C-alpha cells in the first residue's frame, strides 16, 4: 500500500518534463521562442555588430542567410538604405520591444491589482475608482503617447508610461470582478470570524485567488504593448528614431520596401513571432490555471 502511494507520488516527477511538454505544447513552444529571443536580446553586444554603424557603400545589400552563424558578417539579414546591419538592428530592437512589453505588463498589472483589490473590497471606493477607470479608458493610447512625446523628449520610459496608463483600467476591471466573486465565498467569512483585519483578508485571502487570471491577462497586456510600441515608433510618436526598434526600422525602410523587402521583413517577422509566442504562453497558462474557462471557450 505504502509502495503504491510512493510510486504514485514519484510518477509525475520521473519523466515529468516529457509529460509537461505533451500536455502543454503551447506553453513549451511559446516559451522556447521567447527564451531564444530573450537570450539573443541580452547577448546582442556579443553576437551582433554595431547597429548604428553607417556604411553607405554597403547600402541595400540583400541578406545572405548562409552567413547567419558567421560572427561579424554584415550581410546576414542584409543592410538598409544607410548600409546599417539589419541583423544587428533587429537583435538590438528586440531589447526595446521586450523591455517595453515586460515593463508595461508589470506596471499595469501591479498597479491594476491593488486598485482593483481596493475597488472590489471597499464598496465605498468602488464607484469612485470605477468612474475614474472609465475616464482613463476613454483616453486613446496613441493620442496620449503623441501628446507625451510632444511635451517631453520622448524615449523608452515615456513610451512605457503612455502604454501603461490605458492598460490599467482593463486590469482593474478584471481584478475587481474576481474580488467581487471571491469575497462572497465562505472562506472569507471564516477568515473574518477568526479576527483577521480587512488588510490581511485582502492581501492573504483574496489576492492569491486573483493571481491566476491576472498572470494570463499580463501576457496579453505584454503582447499588445509590444505591438502598440511598434505602432507608436512607426508613427514617430514612440522611441526616438536613433534608437533601433522594430517599429522604427519598419518606418525608416518603408520607402525602400519594393527594392529591399528584407529591411521590413526581418523586424516585422520578429515582431510577429514574439507576439505569437507570448500569446501562445498566455493561452497555455489560461488552460492550465483556469481549466473551467478553457473548457467553456473550446
Amino acid at each position, binding site marked *: 500500500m505504502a509502495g503504491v502511494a510512493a510510486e504514485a507520488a514519484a510518477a509525475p516527477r520521473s519523466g515529468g518534463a516529457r509529460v509537461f511538454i505533451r500536455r502543454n505544447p503551447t506553453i513549451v513552444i511559446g516559451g522556447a521562442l521567447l527564451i531564444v529571443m530573450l537570450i539573443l536580446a541580452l547577448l546582442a553586444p556579443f553576437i551582433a555588430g554595431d547597429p548604428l554603424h553607417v556604411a553607405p557603400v554597403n547600402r541595400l545589400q540583400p541578406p545572405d542567410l548562409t552567413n547567419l552563424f558567421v560572427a561579424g558578417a554584415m550581410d546576414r539579414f542584409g543592410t538598409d538604405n544607410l548600409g546599417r546591419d539589419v541583423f544587428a538592428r533587429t537583435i538590438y530592437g528586440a531589447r526595446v520591444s521586450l523591455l517595453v512589453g515586460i515593463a508595461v505588463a508589470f506596471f499595469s498589472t501591479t498597479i491594476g491589482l491593488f486598485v482593483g483589490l481596493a475597488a472590489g473590497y471597499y464598496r465605498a471606493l468602488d464607484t469612485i475608482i470605477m468612474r475614474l477607470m472609465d475616464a482613463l479608458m476613454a483616453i486613446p493610447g496613441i493620442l496620449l503617447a503623441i501628446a507625451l512625446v510632444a511635451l517631453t523628449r520622448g524615449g523608452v520610459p515615456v513610451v512605457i508610461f503612455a502604454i501603461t496608463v490605458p492598460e490599467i483600467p482593463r486590469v482593474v476591471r478584471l481584478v475587481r470582478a474576481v474580488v467581487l466573486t471571491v469575497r462572497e465565498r465562505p*472562506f472569507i467569512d471564516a477568515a473574518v*470570524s*477568526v*479576527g483577521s483585519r480587512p488588510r490581511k483578508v485582502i492581501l*492573504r485571502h483574496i489576492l*492569491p485567488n486573483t493571481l491566476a487570471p491576472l498572470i494570463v491577462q499580463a501576457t496579453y497586456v505584454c503582447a499588445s504593448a509590444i505591438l502598440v510600441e511598434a505602432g507608436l515608433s512607426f508613427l514617430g510618436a514612440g522611441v526616438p528614431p536613433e534608437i533601433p526598434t522594430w517599429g522604427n526600422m519598419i518606418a525608416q525602410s518603408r520607402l525602400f520596401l519594393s527594392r529591399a523587402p528584407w529591411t521590413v521583413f526581418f523586424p516585422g517577422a520578429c515582431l510577429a513571432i514574439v507576439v505569437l509566442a507570448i500569446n501562445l504562453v498566455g493561452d497555455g497558462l489560461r488552460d492550465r490555471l483556469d481549466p473551467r474557462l478553457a473548457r467553456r471557450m473550446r
Partner: protein
Amino acid sequence: MDAAAPLLSVEDLRTHFFTVDGVTRAVDGVSFTVNAGETLGIVGESGCGKSVTALSILRLLPQRIGRIVGGRVLLEGEDLLGLDIGAMRDIRGNRIAMIFQEPMTSLNPVLTIGEQIAEAVRIHQGASAADALARAEEMLALVRISDARRRLGDYPHQFSGGMRQRVMIAMALSCNPKLLIADEPTTALDVTVQAQILKLMLELKERTGAAVMLITHALPVVAETCQRVIVMYAGRIVEMAEVTELFDRPLHPYTRGLMSSIPRLGAAARQKRLTEIPGLVPDLRKPVIGCAFAPRCPLADDHCRAEAPPLTEHLTAHQAACWKAGEAA
C-alpha cells in the same frame, strides 16, 4: 465575577435585514444565556433566525443589509454590540470562535492547512510563525488527523469533507475560545462522518472547557449532544428547556410537530404515517400579529391569532411561548 453569572447573555436581540423588498425581522426579540462549559442547542427550520442569531453575536452580518436594531449581547458582562471594530476583532476567533456549515468552501483553496490554522494563533497570541505552526500541528493531531506534521503543508483539496471539518474545528479551538459557535457543523457531511465529528467536538469541548452553541435543524443531534435546547420559530424563541425535559414533555405545538416528523423505527411506529407540520414558515417581511405559529397550529384559536404569547415558565426551568402550552395536541 461570580460563578453563577452566565458566560454569554443575549438580551432581547433584534436583527433586521433591510432589503429592497422591505424589512425582514430575522431575529425578533431573542433572549437566552449560555453558561460556561455548557452545550446549548438551537433548533429550528431553515429561515427561523438561528444562524442570524449566531452571526449577530459575532457581528458578522452582511454589511449594509443586516443590522442589529436592538438588544444586548453580553460576553462575561461586556456588551459586544458597543465595542469598536478593533475590539470586536480581538474577540473573534479568540474568545468566541465559529465553525461554519460548509467545510468544503470554508477553507481558502490557495493557502495550506497549516497557514490557515496558524492564522488565528498569530493574530491573537502574537506568536511567531514557527510557534504558530507548532500550535497548528498540535491542534491537527488533537482533531485526529494522522501524520499532522506532513499534512500541515497540504492544501484543502487534499482533504475529504470530514477531514476539512476537523481542520475547521482545529482552527476554531486553536486559541482556546470560551465559546464555540457551531453553525450546522455536520449538515454537509456524510451520515457516517457526522457522528464522528460531533463526538470529536464534544470531546474537545470537555478538554478545553469551552461552551458550545450548536445550531442545527436536526433534533436527534441535539438529543445526543446538548444539555439545554432552544427551539426557534420565525425569529423568536418558542421553547427553552433542559434536553431530557424537552423531549419528555414538549410544551409548544411546534416542538411537538418537529418531534413527530422524525421517522421512527419499531412496531408501534409502523402503522402510523410520518406526520408533517402543515403550511409554511410565515413571511417575516410582514408584521406578525398574534402567535407566528398560529396559521399552522392545530390548537390555534382567536386568542392565539390576536395576541402573541410571551415566553413564560410553565414547568421548572422549562419555558414556552404558547397560550396553550401543555394542552394535548
